[in-house]
């Protein structure tokens, strides 16, 4: 499976998806490094200066900055991650190439999971560049430890893993990256709507059976919006409700299982 993962990553660089994702991450981090400066005051307090403006004490400003980075990766960056990851989930099914790989002495599930993990690793790498590297820099330069940031990042990654699992399963039925990408968008939007279903939907949809269906859709589908909020809440030491983690975890396991079964039954 490691071989599959490694070759899938090489492919993503060749197709420029990884290159674009990581280059954008580097540019954003570059802007952070270029704009942020730390100054130690006579009293020992480290102050943050952003774009030449004094923002305040590092132990107050840096967590806020990193929180914004977390929000960014669990929002717009998700979409880029979907764009970059989806082709990896379908390209190995291309006619003529699939036959060569699937006739080898390797289980289909290994090829499936290798590809899935490669797409996830790509997102994880870009996330580390966007959030992890600034956090480490702030720790070294300003002495503000990342604290709960690593687990908060893991929660965001977990949320992305759920969307990716759904795309991977769909790709087994429709081996064309366009459909999984569209579905990824829909899921990202739907997650926000379902999380606020009582305020947003039940005013309009009053039929009990329809509300029942929406409730079940909420329970089953990954809770990406809530997981993004949960990651930030956990990072800032707020109250954390773990239910979205368990239910999304169950979704990942079920959908990956479905994807593997679909691939196993597939004829080439």
């Amino acid at each position, binding site marked *: 499976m490691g071989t599959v993962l490694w070759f899938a990553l090489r492919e993503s660089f*060749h197709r420029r998806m990884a290159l674009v994702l990581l280059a954008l991450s580097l540019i954003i981090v570059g802007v952070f490094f270029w704009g942020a400066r730390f100054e130690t005051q006579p009293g020992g307090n480290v102050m943050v200066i952003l774009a030449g403006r004094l923002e305040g004490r590092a132990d107050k400003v840096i967590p806020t900055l990193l929180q914004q980075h977390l929000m960014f990766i669990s929002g717009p960056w998700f979409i880029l991650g979907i764009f970059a990851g989806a082709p990896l989930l379908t390209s190995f099914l291309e*006619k003529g*190439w699939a036959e*060569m790989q699937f*006739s080898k*002495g*390797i289980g289909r599930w290994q090829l499936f999971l290798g590809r899935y993990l490669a797409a996830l690793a790509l997102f994880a790498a870009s996330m580390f560049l966007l959030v992890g590297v600034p956090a480490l820099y702030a720790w070294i330069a300003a002495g503000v430890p990342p604290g709960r940031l690593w687990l908060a990042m893991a929660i965001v990654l977990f949320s992305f893993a759920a969307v990716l699992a759904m795309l991977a399963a769909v790709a087994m039925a429709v081996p064309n990256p366009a459909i999984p990408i569209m579905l990824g968008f829909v899921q990202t939007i739907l997650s926000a709507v379902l999380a606020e279903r009582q305020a947003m939907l039940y005013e309009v949809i009053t039929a009990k059976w329809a509300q029942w269906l929406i409730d079940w859709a909420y329970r089953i589908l990954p809770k990406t919006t809530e997981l993004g909020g949960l990651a930030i809440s956990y990072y800032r030491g707020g109250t954390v409700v773990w239910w979205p983690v368990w239910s999304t975890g169950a979704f990942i396991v079920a959908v990956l299982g479905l994807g593997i079964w679909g691939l196993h*039954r597939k*004829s*080439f």
Partner: protein
Amino acid sequence: MSPPAVATQNLEKQFRSLFRGGTRALAGVSITAEPGQIFGLLGQNGAGKTTLVKILLGLVWPTSGSAKVLGHNPLEARPRRRIGYLPEQMRLPEHLKAESFLRYMGRLNGLDSRTLRQRIPALLEQVGLAGDKRKLLREYSKGMQQRIGLAQTLLNEPDLLFLDEPTEGLDPVGRKEVRDLLVRLRVQGKTIFLNSHLLSEIELVCDRCVILRKGEVAKEGTPAEFTRDTGEVRMRLARADETVQQAVASAAEVQRWENSSVYVRPRDRVQLNALIDRLRALPVEIEAIEPVRSTLEEFFIDLVKEP
């Protein structure tokens, strides 16, 4: 006693489509290929050859019947490490170079890095691509792609090879090299499943053949069983003027003339000898004389034409 390299029993495959109905690709196919044989698979387009091979490789699920490859169910992954497959339509990863591609293919078959370091250069040499190993696969010509495809087939030193049109895109020298390679592999005890439209090649190298027609086994046997004496004799003469033509016509039944060669159908050996004496008496030099056998191609065309 080792099990057959390939054995199928009443193999059926029905492709179902929601909108276009079903297509029967295979219907009750039972074949056996013994180890160390070159087994030819013939049939028109759509006869079910590729479906059969794909079932044997675990790429397609059969609708019913059973198949065993090297004594195992084709759907088991591990036994496939002893199999090599060259598909007819290859799509190579264009961003890789020959060595990286072969390394990937080898790793999928469970080969370790040390083994691959030894085998890859030797294989590239064997298929004539050693000088092109630094090129990206997208820069390869059709013939070079076929060669690299063949190299990945041989990488795991398989006991059983499925080769779908292995000489496609190769020049005559390349074709001859592939034929020689097949014969060498047979000597090593490998079983080869050969799928080719070039019937002359099948005739040259195969020990047994199966002809599929509309998903069914239409004929199975050795190429020699498919090609038979036609009763005709071909004589190549030094000249074919009117005197010679009259002499031949008076001594045997003439089928046709092709330049200075005549195809005759003598009743028996006595009549043939009389014809030879007649020609010598003229005198006309007989350059060659040989019985005419029907080719596999003729046999194949007759068979698939049958209603």
